[in-house]
């Protein structure tokens, strides 16, 4: 190969992989946050943000936007960068109409206006001390409602 440089070996040890329940990861070894992130301020009502978090889980929003809306296949909603506007009305419009060209379906036929505004309230609470982060509890009240869960 052109410009070949010989470098020291980085060969690992020879050892079979472990199996069974004794194998454990290192949650404490998860990397540190690369920089300090300043919290934002939340002007809305905590109850609305919590109700919006329930909508965020029950309507599968977390699947595209991340469990705490930090992004996955869809963009982060917690970084303060808005492609379609970050006002309450602009966010509500995005939820109602979706962005089908970007893969987001419209939710206007699924959510009431109140539920849309609860979702807006949750999104405005992200990265504030008021941000709700629960997952499993989102289904506590509705888990056994007939027809809700397949």
């Amino acid at each position: 190969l052109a410009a070949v440089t010989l470098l020291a070996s980085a060969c690992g040890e020879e050892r079979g992989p472990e199996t069974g329940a004794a194998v454990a990861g290192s949650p404490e070894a998860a990397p540190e946050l690369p920089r300090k992130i300043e919290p934002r301020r939340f002007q809305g009502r905590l109850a609305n943000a919590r109700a919006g978090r329930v909508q965020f889980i029950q309507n599968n929003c977390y699947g595209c936007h991340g469990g705490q809306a930090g992004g996955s296949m869809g963009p982060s909603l917690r970084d303060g960068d808005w492609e379609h506007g970050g006002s309450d009305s602009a966010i509500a419009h995005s939820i109602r109409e979706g962005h089908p060209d970007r893969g987001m379906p419209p939710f206007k036929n699924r959510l009431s206006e109140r539920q849309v505004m609860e979702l807006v309230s949750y999104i405005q609470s992200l990265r504030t001390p008021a941000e709700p982060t629960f997952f499993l509890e989102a289904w506590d009240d509705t888990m056994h409602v007939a027809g809700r869960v397949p």
Partner: protein
Amino acid sequence: MRGPDLGITSWPGQEWRRGGSTVWGWLSYDPGLDLLYYGTANPGVWNPDQREGDNLWSTTIFARDPATGAARWAYQMSPHDAWDYDGVNENIVVDLPIGGRTRKVLVHFDRNGFAYTIDRATGEVLLAEPFQPINWATDVDLESGRPVEVAAKRPKQGEIVRNICPSAIGARDQQPAAFSPRTGLFYSPAVNLCMDYGAFPAEHIPGTPYLGAAVKMYPGPGGHRGSFFAWDAVEGRKVWEIKEKFPVWSGALATAGDLVFYGTMDGWLKAVDARGGEVLWRKRFDSGIVGNPISYLGPDGKEYLAVYSGVGGWAGAVVPGHLSPDDPYAALGAVNAMRDLPEHTNPGGMIHVFALED
């Protein structure tokens, strides 16, 4: 496993209709046996308690007659998958000396952490050994072909099951291994991440992901997040291993010069001695490598090596996707394990070509 309509009857109700099990990986073909091989993905929904049963034919290797499509055999690796262990990784078709004779086998490094050596004519599992530290199962029963599960590591609705290894990303993702007929060894990338998995109900809403899972990943035993290793598929053992800071998300290339090549997520292209595992040469690019190195003979008669750099994929999504590192559940939990990657590499998209000197 044989029977009528098992792909329907091993699911509750109509769940089979929306049950994932897609084919999004690699296809292999054996012209001698005239058989086509491929693997299927995880079953959907991710919450396993919404789909009791084995959920056939998810996480399955199929051998099919390419003319008619008829299945010759099928082998499900992770029955009633609860961890997102897709079975789509490549199936490498080789002939190996096993038990004093040459066997026509298929070698498959699965996301569930087991490397399988399978008789590709009959589907008989000859060997299944873990190639990474795993704890969801202890081994595979070669009589039945089923994994021997560790019950405490199976996710359940309404609970958070902690410290499952490997993570949903798998002990290896879809980037392919290489085989060297000169050494008789396989060379494979690996991922060493574990996870916490909280399962909860999910409603099927067209156009949205069908999950019902809160997943958070972190480094596995030892703290290194990936490795590159040589594997003996006759004995089912690692021959050597190079540990890496990040998951190894590139494919492998083995050459007739007894070099193997792979790339790292922090941008190193490495050439390794195929027999001893020593790194002989390396070069760093601006962006991480998640492509597959290839070698080829150019029209000028020269030999070339080419590789794509441009970090991304599930583990690398935090860089090009501008994901928020303070959401541990971003990218389905991968960001928690990878949030320092942006400090080590950049978004990119370049082809690098090297010529062999005369």
